[in-house]
């Protein structure tokens, strides 16, 4: 996707760089300390790829996370970005503050299903309501990995724990909740579906508001056994993409040349395009009721539908606009802009005399 200049025959092959001139390797960071084969690590790899290809400037990114195996992953990509591994479940609040302080930062949040759907549920929903521009990734494995495998609130009813206990409660569907809360970009994917994941992440990055990607990301240590509905095997064999998801950045032309009716093109706010190539489903992700109906059906029939679930262009204004903030990040305003002159105090005092 990035244009590279043709190598001259004599010189050694120049490294592949993106439009900022960065090589992909600077999008990497510390070695992962997760279990070998953990789904979260493949998401990290796809994030690295997508960030590189989207020409995201590392120093301008703020990586936000809560606590959990998933939340650790912000240490494993973008080593040249600031990262903030906060407290359990409250990342959305931290991200909100950081965003208000500096609206120019690209905020990427990584969370787990425990972090998001249990302890952090209220913050997750309220940050959606405020429309914080945040790419929010849920690495959803149906368990609390870091505390050794208890069911999370997204565990499917009937899914069986490693020790044999069956989950009796209905799962919380973070996508349905997000849509209900007015989220304008909601997607679901699978850590093993690299083809879908990279363009989805790119589209999420291009989205100017809160963008949720709920990614089934198997916990190989505690939830990858027979009977689990979040195992690799289960996810791989049950994944049913709603469409083939494509992303074309704003600076490229969409050269799609599909048969009429076989693809849907959605223009995003920045001029990028989402291209949905029809597969077996006939699904329009721009209708909220249709999205919710689909998700309920998926839940009751235990379907694992992936792809873009919901997108709306006339999203609510991002929070900084709702608050009529100046364009300059608040952190960069000089003291003169922050401290009123003595007249203001005098005026207030006068009114109290």
């Amino acid at each position, binding site marked *: 996707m990035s244009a590279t200049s043709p190598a001259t025959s004599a010189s050694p092959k120049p490294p592949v760089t993106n439009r900022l001139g960065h090589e992909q390797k600077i999008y990497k960071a510390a070695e992962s300390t997760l279990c070998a084969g953990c789904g979260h690590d493949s998401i990290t790899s796809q994030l690295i790829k997508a960030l590189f290809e989207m020409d995201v400037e590392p120093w301008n990114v703020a990586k936000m996370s809560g606590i959990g195996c998933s939340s650790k992953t912000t240490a494993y990509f973008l080593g040249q970005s600031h990262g*903030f591994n906060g407290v359990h479940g409250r990342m959305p*609040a931290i991200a909100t*503050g950081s965003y208000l302080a500096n609206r120019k930062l690209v905020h990427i949040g990584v969370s787990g299903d425990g972090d998001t759907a249990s302890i952090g549920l209220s913050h997750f929903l309220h940050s959606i309501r405020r429309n914080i521009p945040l790419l929010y990734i849920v690495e959803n494995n149906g368990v609390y990995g870091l505390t050794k495998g208890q069911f999370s609130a997204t565990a499917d009813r009937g899914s069986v724990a490693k020790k044999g206990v069956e989950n009796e409660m209905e799962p919380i569907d973070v996508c349905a909740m997000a849509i209900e809360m007015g989220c304008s970009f909601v997607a679901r994917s699978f850590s093993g579906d690299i083809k879908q994941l990279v363009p989805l992440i790119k589209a999420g990055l291009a989205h100017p508001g809160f963008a949720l990607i709920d990614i089934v990301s198997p916990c190989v240590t505690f939830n990858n056994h027979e009977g689990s509905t979040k195992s690799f095997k289960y996810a791989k064999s049950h994944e049913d993409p709603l469409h083939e998801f494509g992303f074309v950045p704003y600076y490229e032309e969409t050269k799609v040349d599909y048969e009429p009716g076989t693809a849907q093109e959605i223009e995003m706010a920045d001029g990028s395009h989402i291209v949905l190539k029809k597969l077996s489903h006939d699904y329009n992700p721009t209708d909220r009721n249709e999205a919710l109906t689909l998700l309920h059906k998926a839940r009751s029939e235990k379907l694992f539908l992936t792809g873009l679930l919901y997108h709306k262009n006339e999203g609510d204004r991002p929070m900084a606009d709702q608050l009529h903030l100046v364009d300059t990040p608040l952190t960069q305003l000089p003291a003169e802009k922050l401290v009123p002159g003595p007249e203001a105090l005098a005026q207030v005092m006068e009114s109290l005399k």
Partner: protein
Amino acid sequence: MSIEASSATTNAATGSSEPATRGLPASAGRTPVVNDLVISIATSNGTGSQSANNILMRTIFNMGVPVGGKNLFPSNIQGLPTWFDIRVNKNDFTSRRAGVDLMVAMNPESARDDISSLRPGAILVINEDMKAFINRDDLIIYVVPFSKLVVPICPDGRLRRLVVNMMYVGVVGWLLHFDLEELKRAIQKQFGRKPAALELNQNAAVGGYEWAAENLERQDLFSVERMTGKAEGKVIMDGNMAAALGLLYGGTTVLSWYPITPSSSVCENLIAFLGKYRHEEDGKATYAVVQAEDELAAIGMVVGAGWAGARAVTATSGPGISLMAEFAGLSYFAEIPAVIVDVQRMGPSTGLPTRTCQGDIAKAYNLSHGDCKHVLLIPGSLQEAFEFGIESLNLAERLQTLVFLMLDLDIGMNNYMIDPLQLTDRPLDRGKVLDAEALNKVEEFARYRDVDGDGIPYRTLPGTPHPKAAFFTRGTGHTDRATYSEKPEDWQSNMDRLSRKFDTARAITPQPVIDTVEGAGIGIIAYGSSDAPIREARVRLDEEHGLKTNYLRIRALPLSADVREFIASHERVIVIEQNRDAQMASIIRSDYPDLAPRVSTLLHYNGLPLDAQTVINGVIVNPGTVN
């Protein structure tokens, strides 16, 4: 043994600096006590009495007489008993004084208690409808048919409940010899922008005044007379507004809050000031305000904003402090600037949301699990509430940590006559931040390294365009280069550096204010809203009991070295505070175990603002007990 503050009325003989005129049965014709009395107005909340009471207070202020107001309101919105106590005192002692001289009883619900609480000889103005409650003959009683009088003045029946309040203002005004013009000026100030209301209220006040002049026999026990040299040029305001102005001048860029009494008005004032003084020409705001979903989110946003480089603040009270505990530890350990304004109300638990105390001092200081302590700024006046509002943001960035600005309901929500707030010319302190240019100059950027020996490391902000800028922030163990570590030596050396940083805080936070006098034996230590009653008590201890005292007022935690020195130079020190558990004394005793035997305590915790008499009783009764 702790000295329990008495909530009953103070013995009249010691209740004032004019003891001779007090406590005697009323008799007409005597020379009135001038500019020294306590007025209490008993009404029901939500009935509009608040503006009437403010006008009453302001009239006295307009006449140049020092005055202070204490609003004892219930924790609901309408219909429960509420009292507004006005202390008039020519010597500037305007903190609470028990022992009401003039009670205006307008609330049948509290009338029985209101009347029985009065000392013999006190004045009672009572609504005629409530006559039946009168069961004493040792009071000077004025029965006023307010409900009848208001009818001709206020034809609109629905407004009468409000307007009737202005009538007692008029009656009191006549009884106390108010200057009617100053009363009108006060009404003008309150209702100036609403001509109809202005006229109505003027009429009601004047109506009350005139009715009283014609119908009441004035006993002239007390009068308010114009003074000079005391109130001119002053303002009447509360501490929450002063703190809000401090936060405005401190350059707040992010305010995230969740409403809670009595802190809400810090935020509401700040929002109003920001709205007025912090918009660009194009109308854009140079600040962000969020009403968070709860206190955990409120402090979370502050921490996120502080991390990214904002001057960020939240305000709350007791329950919110508890909910902010986890984030407080993160701010401490990951070293992120943050400011929490705690306007203390009576706890534990939901407690008495509209009553004052100093019950969070040790709680805020020690907030969060594990070894961590925080910096507290504790203003003892409105000027300090303002200055420390600015300073809290400076220190948060300088020390890269959480700073509490500790107010209480008394200082935050009651009315004080003060000199207009003074700006200092100290520039904003943004602390040790390395920008791209600075990063070019340093060999290595190690986020948690103690480069300067003061325990304070350098930080960078996200969005700094430099490949060396990035670091990873976490609440888990880390090396000085901010990488993850579980190594015992990394953990311990980092914790020791944090202790050094805390020692730096001892020296750069506001130092205690010390007043020593010749011949003093006892040292008093106090803080916050206790200052005014203690200043009064010291004068009276000297004048009435011949007891001279030295006084140290703590203005910040951790304790400054001056506190140790003060204690060391006294055989005995009494720590006076408004909580049951001697919270500040505990901190002092554990910081200075060698001096602990000298430290006794005087504790007041019934929800009422501290008064001088309680201090005097405590100091005299308890000259040396260690408790």
